[in-house]
């Protein structure tokens, strides 16, 4: 099995070299390249076509979301995992809406980061506990019946809610699957469905929530 080719985008040199060191040390990952600003990131990613791009949400010139948008407009199969020091909902939401397949915080352990990269590379979604909580919160409030309420997109199913709760409690997918007596694959399907809703829902609460609450 060939190594996963990962590209790292972060404006902090110190952080880039740290991540590179960690990932290479993990063995199953090859760091294809790295960039510190939006323009060079977009250029290099298009050139190198890595499997996964690990991108910092906070950067000058539009940050991670801008990189994701620009690359995906020409290379829709490159997947992105967003990463940030802040769990500010507005940041998370803009990265996910731009097309990131997952969101993790910078305090994540190396093993978890490697696992997350492999998950998004395999087409699954990765939620940090905080992001799971955010989604639950944003979809929890009874909608003030928006004009174009789409039950498919604007609501979570009971099962999705259960999965998200477990993730928010700190469960890994495997543990959540065991808890709910379902397969890991099913858990991943639920999370991917939630991700899609997050990306496509026009739910008014989603944006308002993100704007109003600034989690530290």
């Amino acid at each position, binding site marked *: 099995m060939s190594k996963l080719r990962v590209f790292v985008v972060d404006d902090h040199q110190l952080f880039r070299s740290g991540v590179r060191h960690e990932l290479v040390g993990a063995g199953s990952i090859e760091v294809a390249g790295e960039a510190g600003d939006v323009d060079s990131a977009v250029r290099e990613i298009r050139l190198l076509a890595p499997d996964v791009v690990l991108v910092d949400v906070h950067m000058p010139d539009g940050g991670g979301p801008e990189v994701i948008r620009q690359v995906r407009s020409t290379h829709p199969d490159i997947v992105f995992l967003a990463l940030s020091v*802040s769990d*500010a909902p507005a940041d998370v939401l803009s990265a996910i809406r731009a097309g990131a397949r997952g969101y993790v915080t910078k*305090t994540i*352990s190396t093993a978890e980061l490697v696992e997350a990269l492999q998950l998004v590379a395999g087409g699954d979604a990765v939620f940090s*506990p*905080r992001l*799971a*909580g955010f989604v*639950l*919160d944003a979809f*929890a409030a009874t909608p003030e019946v928006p004009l174009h309420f789409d039950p498919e997109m604007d609501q979570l199913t009971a099962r999705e809610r259960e999965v998200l*709760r477990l993730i*928010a*409690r*700190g*469960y890994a997918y495997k543990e959540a699957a065991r808890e709910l007596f379902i397969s890991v694959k099913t858990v991943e399907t639920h999370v991917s469905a939630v991700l899609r809703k997050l990306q496509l829902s026009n739910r008014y609460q989603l944006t308002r929530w993100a704007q109003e609450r*600034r*989690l*530290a």
Partner: protein
Amino acid sequence: MDTVAHQPAYRWSPPEAPPQAAAVPVGAVAGRPVIPAESKKTWSRLRRVQRPRVVAGVAGMLADVFGVTATAVRIAFVVLGFAGGTGLAAYVLLWLFIPAEGEQGPIARRATSDRRTLPLVLAVASGIAAVMVAAGIAGVGAPLGMVAPGGVALAGLVAVWRHAGTGDREALQHLANQLSGANSSAVPTRRRLLIASCRLAVGVALVGAGSSAFLAPTHLSGTDLRLLLGALAVVGGFALVLAPWWLRLGRELAAERRQRARAEERAEVASHLHDSVLQTLALIQRNADDSQQVKRLARVQERQLRAWLFGGAPAGPLFAGAATTLAGAVASLQRDIEADHGARVEVVTVGDCPLDERLDALVAATREAAVNAAKWSGAEVISVFAEVEPLSISIFVRDRGRGFDPEAVPPDRKGISESIRARVERQGGKASVRSALGQGTEVAMQMPRGTVL
């Protein structure tokens, strides 16, 4: 003005050598009679009294010089003030040219080193001159001799205002508050000072114009009308010539104010970073060998910085103040445990609600569970998840530490889970502890909500 400024000369010895100080009265009194018996104080050593003072401490200073009471000097100033405004002008000039106690140089020296003050003073003076000339033409104005001291005083005040030290600034603001009738206000602002001075100026002008009109022997005639038009033309001419300059000056002052606001903000950020981040970095360097301590320090600092950056929390002490909502209580629990035990606590809260007696018990139980996990599980991370639902509140505390076999519970662990359960159940809630050797522990708690909000 001459009288007031120069009278002290016969009691104060002039300096042996001509003083190099910029203060104008110094040069003016050199060569006057000397009274050697007096102290070695010279004009250049004269200082405005800082306490007690009413405005600038000028009266107190002169009272010392003449050996009379400050009240007498003040009365003299007021009398001279009514007599053509000389008293006011003299006062402002003394304010400008004599340093306050504890200050290095007079305000005038600071004013001359600022490239904006002179234009500003000139602008005020030219504005007054414009009004004066126009008023003179219209025949309603006061004679030149009366307006000139007022103009000098006003222009001098501008310089004082821009370069006054903290004491003088406070005095000015206090004065403005008194004048605007808002002396009880807690925030004396620059704006209020400005409004007050404008109000005062307009008021005085109206009174002057009104009394002249009242005293005028005849009603408006054709000649008066022509004079009025002439006056308007003069004002218009002045405005036309000087307006661009006034406007530019105004813009520059506004820009300067913005810049100052930015600088203040920067200073605030810098002082916060200095008090918090730099201190922590220094501590980390000193504790570089103790990785637990380094982690703990970094974590506490991280929380503090986050709270400051994203939460808008005051940059004060981290642990001050009691939380009033569930999310706040959980967040403070997180900070405490991270600071005391060095484990990372990941908190996720969904929804929020105010604390009540039941929730206090729930939070206390949560704290107990989390502290327990931090102490015994050996796990790096403890997850706390709190969800507020319409009918109940659930909290889960989970670690991936060593766990324990519920069948063979050591007595101390049993005691803890019993105590958590008892706390929650007393208030009508439920609690359960799940654990397996090597797989960590999870405490699940649920509390019904007392009232439906």
